[in-house]
């Protein structure tokens, strides 16, 4: 049957093509898609840049220091006369900070998130949520100074029986980093909980579930992928935090120690300090910056692969 043309369609007169239509928007749509795809692909470029900027100095580093010594050695003293390049001490320093920070921020952050999403009145939420977001922006330098000048002395006064040998404490630095990431964890996981459809909440309440049960058994599992993402983001912030540790953790000593109360160095603080220090470029010591950077990068990579698996496993579909 004859189809007369669609408005603005040249092909519409063709009775065989009742569906042909304004193709004009087509190009626009394609162009937009290409632009958006480029935006997304840009991130790959960034990663490539990071890898490239790390890889050459790292290769040069491992030309002089065996990989095994780097990864397994227990003394980190690149700038010493008897130089030693065992990275474990600063890896352990980083781990202490991360574990401490998570121990502080996950319970506090999730508690805040659940409270805000499920308990708080909208008025409270309207005040507290933005406040958390402002706090998220507290400069890390400020938190470092606070940890060093306030928290650490206070901790010694409160718990004099612990071995506070130095004005520094890696543990206190970890607690401060924990404080720093609380808003992040809280805010991201609150978003996840709030985006759980209201129908689920209603359904659970209608079964006589208490708020606690609704929060923990329905909302929490439904939002778990977002919550894991929040914790992963927090973890990576903790691993990557430089300034707080630079100020409040000192640099410890080159040997492998697990002293929570004492001074120690982390990987990022080492990079930050050394890169702005007086080390001359082209030396092995200078190259350690990149080797440590590469290690950090690989560690976060591995962590993320694991996290992505977890998120995928827990992602719940609704609607």
């Amino acid at each position, binding site marked *: 049957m004859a189809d007369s043309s669609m408005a603005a369609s040249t092909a519409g007169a063709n009775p065989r093509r009742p569906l042909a239509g304004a193709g004009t928007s087509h190009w626009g749509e394609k162009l937009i898609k290409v632009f958006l795809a480029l935006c997304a692909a840009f991130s790959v470029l960034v990663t490539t840049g990071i890898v490239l900027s790390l890889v050459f100095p790292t290769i040069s580093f491992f030309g002089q220091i065996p990989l095994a010594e780097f990864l397994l050695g227990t003394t980190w003293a690149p700038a010493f006369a*008897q130089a030693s390049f065992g990275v474990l001490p600063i890896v352990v320093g980083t781990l202490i900070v991360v574990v401490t920070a998570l121990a502080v921020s996950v319970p506090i952050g999730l508690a805040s998130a659940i409270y805000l999403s499920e308990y708080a009145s909208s008025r409270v939420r309207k005040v507290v949520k933005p406040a958390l977001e402002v706090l998220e922006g507290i400069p890390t330098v400020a938190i470092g100074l606070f940890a060093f000048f306030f928290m650490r002395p206070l901790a010694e006064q409160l718990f004099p029986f612990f071995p506070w040998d130095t004005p520094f404490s890696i543990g206190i630095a970890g607690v401060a980093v924990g404080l720093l990431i609380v808003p992040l964890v809280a805010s991201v996981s609150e978003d996840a909980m709030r985006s759980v459809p209201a129908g689920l909440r209603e359904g659970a309440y209608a079964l006589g579930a208490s708020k606690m049960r609704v929060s923990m058994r329905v909302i929490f599992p439904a939002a778990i992928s977002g919550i894991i993402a929040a914790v992963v983001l927090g973890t990576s912030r903790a691993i990557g935090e430089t300034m707080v540790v630079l100020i409040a953790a000192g*640099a*410890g000593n080159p040997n492998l120690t697990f002293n929570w109360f004492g001074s120690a160095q982390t990987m990022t603080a080492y990079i930050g300090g050394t890169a702005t*220090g007086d080390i001359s*470029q*082209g030396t092995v010591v200078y190259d350690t910056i990149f080797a440590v950077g590469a290690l950090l990068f690989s560690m976060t990579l591995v962590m993320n692969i694991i996290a992505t698996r977890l998120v995928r496993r827990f992602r719940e579909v609704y609607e």
Partner: protein
Amino acid sequence: GGGGEADSSGGEGGGELSGQIQIDGSSTVGPLSEVAAELFMEQNPGVQISVAMSGTGGGFERFCNGETDMNDASREISEEEIALCEEAGISQERITVANDALGVIVHPDNPIDCITVDQLNQIWGPDSSATTWGDVEGLEAGDAADSEFTLYGPGTDSGTFDYFTEAVNGEEGSIRTDYTDIGEDDNAAITGVEGDANAMAFVPYSYFMEAGDAVKPLQIDSGDGCTEPTLENVQSGAYTPLGRGLYVYASDVALENQASVAFMNFYIENSAEITETAGFIPLTDEQMSTATEQIESLSS
């Protein structure tokens, strides 16, 4: 990129100089250059001086890349860095702009007042096994002899660390490994020593001067008797081996412009005011004339 593009139409010493001068380098010397820059700009508002503190090494990298005009340094330029500069066709000269002293500080209650270089070496040396004051030969520690000491040192990437290890232990970076590294912030060493009767640390002059009575800088005996780390003793060279110079490296390329030359001369001529403000020790007359000559020869 970088500096060097100041236009020199203003003529010498006048108030009409203009252009940009970029300085980078050591964070120890940085505050000194800042004071110099600030004072200089007051008189020459047309000149814009920026002082970065990427560290001596990072600074040399930029300096030899032609990105900066001058480099603050708390140590001498290394072989690698010289090569870099040569590659870029930049010839540089070390100009001493101030004197500094490393102070070995202890708690004010510590009975020790004076220490020999050898005793310092016994404490800080790479093979040291000393853990109490009493372990150190000839140290008059009195009641504190049996107390274990705590040691603080600055970041191993700092010029202060290099200088101290070389002066006391004979080799850069040669030091026992079980002391506490305080990293970037020398104030932390003051805080540490202040709060611990058995602590010892070494810090730059400005830090222990500012701390006042909170800590006690020890006199150093390098064979000629105990010497206090005072301004006069450092200038006269009596405070050895922990007195040191602080440097600005300038390049021939940078000194092609009048503003840079004027600034360097200003830096030297006003040494007394600049160093006092920044908490360092002024140049001696001899050092000043050497510096002036160096500037002269580089810029011609």
